[in-house]
């Protein structure tokens, strides 16, 4: 006789594991997060660009921080998300986790690209150069390469299931390597200022400056959530196209 396992987590948590449940739940969440991200990004951008005070040294050019820092933070957290989702996909053989990892890669790569690009624009007036082989720039560049590796591996394999597992292993290996890369590059060369936000300390800038930054970071996270859910839903539709429930969704 089959025994039913006791469910520890709420029911929606288990529903998320099935493509159908995940599709329905993300469909409900999507409007909320879309509104949230538009609101946060709009408030953050207007506040940051029009009302936040100028930097006493860098003048208005420092305002690019409001795009640069959120993108850099996101590039790193998305890599974590991708690697953890990949690990879940390998250990529990969960289809949805695999699709999450797959959907994360291009978003993370574009965030890393935005961070590098805005960093270059910011570097020109403040450091006097577009590019500098500085520790943080280099490690962001390597992070971008890691994303490209994962994406290349995905596209090289035919079966999405094996491609997902292979890419998951690669992203976990990359995750182990990220701190090593970070410290080795830090040791090697440093010009960049240290992190703007630390969890343990008060920020070194006044509240009028870091509050909009915080809003922008939250807005970027919501934007990531929206983007991820949209990609995930597309991926579910693509991979589950033979399932009967898809027909009901489309018609």
């Amino acid at each position, binding site marked *: 006789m089959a025994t039913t396992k006791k469910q520890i987590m709420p029911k929606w948590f288990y529903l998320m594991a099935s493509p159908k449940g995940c599709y329905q739940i993300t469909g409900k969440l999507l409007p909320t997060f879309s509104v949230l991200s538009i609101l946060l990004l709009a408030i953050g951008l207007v506040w940051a660009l029009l009302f936040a005070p100028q930097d006493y040294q860098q003048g208005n050019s420092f305002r690019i921080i409001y795009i640069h820092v959120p993108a850099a933070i996101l590039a790193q957290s998305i890599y974590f998300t991708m690697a953890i989702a990949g690990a879940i996909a*390998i250990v529990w053989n969960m289809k949805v986790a695999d699709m999450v990892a797959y959907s994360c890669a291009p978003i993370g790569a574009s965030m890393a690209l935005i961070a590098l690009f805005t960093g270059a624009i910011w570097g020109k007036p403040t450091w006097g150069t577009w590019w500098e082989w500085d520790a943080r720039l280099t490690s962001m560049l*390597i992070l971008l*390469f*890691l994303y*490209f*590796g994962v994406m*290349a*591996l995905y596209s*090289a*394999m035919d*079966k999405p299931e*094996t491609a997902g*597992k*292979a890419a998951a*292993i*690669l992203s*976990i*290996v*990359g995750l*182990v*390597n990220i701190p*090593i*890369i970070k410290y*080795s*590059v830090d*040791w*090697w060369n440093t010009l960049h200022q240290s992190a703007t936000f630390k969890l343990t300390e008060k920020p070194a800038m006044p509240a009028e400056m870091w509050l909009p930054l915080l809003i922008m970071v939250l807005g970027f996270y919501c934007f990531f959530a929206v983007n991820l859910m949209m990609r995930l839903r597309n991926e579910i539709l693509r991979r589950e196209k033979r399932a009967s429930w898809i027909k009901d969704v489309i018609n």
Partner: protein
Amino acid sequence: MLRIFWAELAKDLLLAFRRRGDLLNPLLFFAMVIALFPLGVSPAADFLTQLAPGVLWVCALLAALLSLDNLFKSDYEDGTLEQLLLSSESTYMVAIAKSLAHWLTTGLPLTLLAPLFAMMLFLPTDAIPVLVISLLLGTPTLSMIGAIAAALTVGLKKGGMLISLLVLPLYIPVLIFGASAVQASVQQLPVNAYFAILGAMLALSIVLAPFAISASLRISVSN
């Protein structure tokens, strides 16, 4: 556990020895790429001295990288790999043995050949032992990490280019510390810290990489 390790190592070394031509290829590649730098950049002695640590390390890294493609390929194609994975023997040990065989046939000869090219690039004589030790500590790490990418791409028809894409970002820490050690010894600075870190990365990769290698092999074979 150890029996399969020795058996696999002996088999791989024997196979490598039977195809002596392939054994020579990474070394020739190493030699030729190094010869490109004086030709392409500048043959001035003081300039080459500055360039030498980085060039030697990058060339060793590329030579080790290009030989990765064949690491699992022949075993995959004739079905040996599948039998190894099906057997009750430890895949962890197989993974270590195969990476070690790769190092013994590429990394070690490169290390032994490096002093010769170091002389040609006018690396100071004092720095040559440091170069050899840094390569001895660093190249096995390259083999262990590279084996992960080789295992991931073994089932693909065009794995060669992909391996480089996957593995180069992961090689960067080894390159940084390996080349910095030689650079430091050229400038007469202490090098023990670099050796310690290279050794730590080697220990870490020997312990952790075989897990990733055997998981990747299982995925590639099931494809």
